[in-house]
């Protein structure tokens, strides 16, 4: 990679130096600090690179509500599975969504019961599938602003076949996390801000985190050096008694975010209150299609039934506390026993971004 040296971020020398720097810097810390990241892919990198091994004992890194699959409500999963079983439709969704348990069924289990559900890699592939299908194709669109942006851009700029519909469960991270901070449900000493979601939203929106809650907030990329750099900057801020938004992933994130993406989102979606699995309703945190796009809105074009007895977490599952960073999977009595990636009890055991799954796969247990 010619001019832009991307290899540097997983160079062992640099990583070790950053690790040493953090250890040195951490000696000055007055107490053990808890740094929360809010991005499943960060958790994945941390586990994969063994980064917790490289941190001093007085720095704990925990995972917050950063997996869009984990925070998708059973209410929506139940409703769309019901539709797929009842009507002659094709349901499209991302691979990580397939095993997420709803109240009774996951998408995978619905497939065994005859539902036509297909994994896609991208909304654009989904549109192609619809073009070649004579069924209504509904894209169960999950994901944070990073994924909402392509959905919006596609609807805005592409010719969408008449049989292609969106069921949006897209969510907006900054508002979700802000609400949780405000409610006191989560607490930490500093935040690692998401790398890719922030390319869309930009970092300005996170200034309220520093201003209102005094939390050092540093955006990070996904290589080992990226995450350690963010932690280094956080520790420096804490030692300097600062609390500011910093960008440790400048090669990708612009402070103002991606204007074109923001415009596409604004054009297509509006923000409204949304249920986050296990966390309840959070205002201004969910993307719904604007009326202008109602013809593509599965929620409006199909007769979708919602029930009130949906189950977000089976008894015993600590997912909601784990998502909030209050507990770790080790605190859940079901972890690795009744709850495994094969037969997950809670959503955190499903996606490779889910904390429980991440710990199951590669955690040192």
């Amino acid at each position, binding site marked *: 990679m010619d001019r832009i040296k991307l290899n540097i971020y997983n160079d062992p020398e640099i990583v070790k130096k950053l690790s040493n720097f953090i250890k040195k810097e951490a000696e000055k810390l007055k107490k053990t600090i808890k740094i929360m990241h809010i991005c499943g892919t960060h958790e994945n990198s941390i586990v994969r690179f063994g*980064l917790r091994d490289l941190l001093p004992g007085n720095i704990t890194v925990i995972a917050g509500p950063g997996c869009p699959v984990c925070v998708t409500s059973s209410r929506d999963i139940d409703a769309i599975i019901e539709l797929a079983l009842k009507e002659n439709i094709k349901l499209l969704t991302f691979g990580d969504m397939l095993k997420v348990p709803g109240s009774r069924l996951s998408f995978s289990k619905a497939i065994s019961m005859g539902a036509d559900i297909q*994994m896609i890699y991208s909304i654009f592939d989904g549109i192609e599938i619809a073009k070649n299908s004579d069924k209504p194709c509904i894209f169960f669109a999950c994901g944070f602003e990073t994924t909402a942006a392509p959905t919006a851009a596609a609807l805005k700029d592409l010719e969408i076949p008449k049989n292609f519909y969106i069921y949006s469960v897209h969510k907006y991270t900054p508002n979700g996390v802000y609400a949780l901070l405000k409610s006191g449900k989560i607490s930490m000493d500093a935040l690692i801000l998401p790398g890719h979601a922030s390319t869309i939203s930009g970092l300005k929106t996170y200034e309220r985190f520093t201003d209102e809650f005094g939390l050092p907030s540093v955006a990070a990329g996904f290589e080992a050096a990226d995450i350690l750099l963010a932690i280094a900057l956080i520790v420096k801020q804490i030692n300097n008694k600062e609390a500011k938004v910093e960008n440790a992933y400048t090669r990708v994130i612009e402070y103002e975010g991606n204007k074109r993406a923001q415009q596409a989102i604004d054009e297509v979606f509006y923000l409204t209150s949304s249920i986050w699995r296990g966390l309840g309703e959070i205002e201004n945190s969910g993307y719904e299609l604007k009326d202008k796009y109602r013809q593509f809105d599965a929620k409006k074009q199909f007769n979708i039934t919602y029930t009130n007895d949906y189950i977000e977490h089976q008894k015993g599952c600590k997912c909601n506390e784990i998502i909030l960073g209050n507990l770790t999977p080790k605190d859940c009595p079901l972890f690795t026993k009744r709850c495994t990636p094969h037969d997950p009890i809670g959503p955190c055991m499903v996606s490779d971004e889910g904390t429980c799954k991440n710990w199951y*796969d590669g955690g040192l247990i």
Partner: protein
Amino acid sequence: MSQKITLDHGSGGKLTLELIEEVFKSESGLDSAILGDIAFTTDSHSIKPLFFAGGDIGKLSVAGTVNDLLCVGAKPLYLSTAFIIEAGFEIDKLNRIVKSIKEEAEDAGVKIVCGDTKVVENGKCDGVYINTSGIGKIIRPIKGDNINDGDAVIVSGSIGEHGFAILNQRENLNLNTELRSDVSNLTDLILPLIESDVEIKFMRDPTRGGLAMCLNELCYKRDFGFEIEESLIPVMEDVRVISEILGIEPYYSANEGKMVIVVSKKDQDRALDILKKNPKGSNAKIIGKVSKKTAGNVILKTKFGSTRLLKMPVADKMPRIC
């Protein structure tokens, strides 16, 4: 265990292992049975798509069984092929598959000596399923016993190619790549090793579940584990990129033309030399060692000096996006 069989039970991962233990009560843990001076093995093959970059179900079904015979130190000799065919299947495709079986068998030095054909209703099979069973002559039995601390773990080439090539085609991921399945019999590569005096402790082809499954299975409920240096594992650049695009580590992606070999430490370099004489072994690497300390576990040491568990996969990994 759940009350019903699920796809995960067939993923070749942890659930498969448990099913075999609990229902079939089989404990050998070897790829082929050793029966005096012959080896005997069986595998049924179902794959989607039937024809893929680098091979087809025919080639796969020959290579798989030949390699399983090699695993126990046998020279592969005879194969059976049993077809289950879906009504409506094109005879042309069948001819292509049969041709491919014959070519791979010839390349592997085995004779196809018996067969069977069943046809099932349209829809009751995914085109064609092929069972191959194989008989080999034991040159020296390799049973996975006498494993010592420090024994070397060798992988005969770069990993993950088959699994990703298939996944790309099966799930229409539209990745445009030269990547091809590595499916291949390893007679020419492994037989010289078996015939040498290198002290081979254990061999297994890292198929379903990939390297991660293979290593975990080798030490499953045993008094040893593995310490693997992540940076030594050979991974082709395209596999590495696809791994990142899909969010699936290459260690979990299947191989159909690779061998994991545990040899005594003293012979590790000689083993590597023998492998490297064959083009199929040109990327062979010593990737780690047996460690009594980590009994039952596979420890991956990262290039950053940190460690983590390389867990046994539970089910097939699906591409992820968020």
